[in-house]
């Protein structure tokens, strides 16, 4: 799949050179200032299978960054690599100035990164409260104040505190998953397809919640199938194709760019 796409000629070869002269979307993948997450020339994959090559990505402190791109572009792989769940091959991942590639997830959590995977992201047999408690497993004491903060953010979870997470609706489960990842008050929250599987009327509600998490100071790095909405909401967006950077710009600039719209946002 990946190899095919690389060798196949683009539909309009003339326009699809490496950096089209008429492109308005940027291709400067690094930012100028300090970044809490700094990915440089990253090669990673699963076992011998390489998915990412030379990926460059920055997230500034408190920034809201989205990764979009076609299926199989390696969007989720970027997140999993940041979290130490893939095979790191080359390049660096730095978090708050310290290299974190090669660390185990348990150590990366301690650095201040939270991760909400796309599927199976709650413990169905545990109560809502127990799910949250597990999010703070590495602490000696259950942080009651943080549980209260999360209940204030997602009031329905307070009502459902003793209910098993497996009996909740999709949207409520997603809140439990986010709450669990927020238990250690991370500086960076990784969200893999947070709107996947949600009823359409809940999607915009979920995006509002993510906005509020970001407004409270947590940097967000998100992969989203709902690319238009994600780009509208975020500060900056990365377009990934075949495991490589293609475009990087402010969300509205990517939305406005004709090539991006045609090739990745369905017109």
């Amino acid at each position: 799949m990946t190899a095919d796409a690389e060798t196949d000629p683009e539909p309009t070869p003339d326009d699809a050179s490496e950096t089209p002269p008429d492109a308005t979307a940027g291709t400067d993948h690094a930012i100028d200032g300090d970044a809490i997450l700094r990915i440089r020339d990253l090669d990673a994959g699963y076992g011998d299978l390489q998915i990412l090559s030379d990926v460059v990505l920055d997230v500034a402190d408190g920034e809201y960054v989205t990764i979009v791109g076609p299926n199989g572009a390696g969007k989720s792989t970027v997140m999993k690599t940041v979290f130490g769940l893939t095979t790191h091959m080359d390049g660096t991942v730095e978090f708050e100035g310290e290299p974190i590639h090669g660390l185990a997830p348990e150590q990366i959590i301690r650095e201040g990164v939270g991760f909400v995977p796309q599927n199976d992201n709650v413990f169905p047999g545990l109560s809502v409260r127990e799910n949250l408690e597990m999010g703070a497993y590495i602490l000696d004491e259950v942080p009651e104040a943080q549980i209260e903060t999360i209940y204030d953010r997602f009031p329905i979870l307070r009502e459902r505190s003793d209910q098993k997470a497996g009996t909740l609706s999709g949207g409520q489960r997603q809140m439990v998953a986010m709450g669990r990842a927020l238990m250690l008050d991370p500086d960076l929250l990784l969200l893999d397809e947070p709107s996947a599987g949600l009823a359409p009327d809940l999607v915009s509600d979920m995006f509002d919640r993510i906005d509020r998490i970001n407004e409270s100071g947590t940097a967000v790095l998100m992969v989203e199938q709902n690319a238009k909405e994600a780009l509208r909401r975020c500060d900056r967006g990365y377009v990934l194709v075949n495991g490589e950077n293609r475009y990087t710009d402010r969300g509205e600039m990517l939305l406005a760019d004709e090539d991006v719209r045609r090739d990745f946002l369905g017109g």
Partner: protein
Amino acid sequence: MRARPGVLFVVLLGGLLLVDLTAKLAGVGLGPIGGSLSVDRLGSNLWNGIVIGLVIGLAGIGLSMTYSILSFANFSHGDLVSVGAFSGWGVAFLIAGFGDVPVRALLTVRDAGSASPGDIGAHILTTPAAILVGLLAAFVVTALLAVALDRAFYKPMRDRDGIALLIASIGAALVVRYLLQFGYGSDRRGVTASVDASNLAFGPLGLSVNAHELTILVAALGLMLAMHGMLQHTKLGTAMRAMADNKDLALITGIPAERVVTATWIIGGGLAGASGYLYVLLRGTIQFDFGWLLLLLIFAAVILGGIGSVYGAIVGGLVIGVVFTTSTIWIPSDFNQAAAFAVMILMLLLRPEGLFGGVSTT
């Protein structure tokens, strides 16, 4: 809907057995149905079934836990049961018979000596401290062995599939079993002393209850309650349920998998050892491979209850135990193990996930 004919069959069969049982109790004979059966015998069958069931259920807890947290069926679990029995009774003998009988004979549960169970006099009424310390020793030694087996065999294979681990566990079972035979000998021998007036009769029920059976009841229920409290109300127990639910999510949540796995072996192995020790209290005899023979019934209980569920293992154990003993009302006692498996197979046909399967109680 699919299971309807099967359910009907089971209900009819159960109804027939119930009618037959009532007829037997009333002493009415109608052709093949009925006959005679005293209330006493039924009561003692049920009581024995409950006691055996508690022992099987206690052993099943560990088997179910290792299945749900490590994803493999551990065939060395039965031999852990034997290890608990021998190590625990060695310690109990040492305390009960110290000074009168050579220490080597005591520690090997009488293999090297000519002392009889009566000489050592291990019994809950005469040497209660020895019996209780022995129970503790059975738990501790078996838990340590379970952790050692994990380090030696299963930890290096952590990423392998369940079949590879299952076969490795059969190898571990053989190693443990024949080391037991090497150390303790292969003869079956009596262990507990008999004490007069150890039977407590419950008059109105016509039930005669042995002090050792009461000990098993109290010890097994106590351990099960402790297990329940640990699982539901401690951080470690919650982490165990979390790992049983979703190992990948446990990893990215920061739950230290290896520590939880070690705790699983300690608790599961320890309970297996304790159940082996208690089983000897019930039967009065010990033999190097009795745990292996018991493993089939333990598996039946765990599968019946829903493999992976701790509570299912307990309920499954009770069902298997009661079927095991009450089936002798209808069939010769040589076949009662077959009756236990028949019930397990019926359960698999009607409800493949088991009694507690899919309920996610861990």
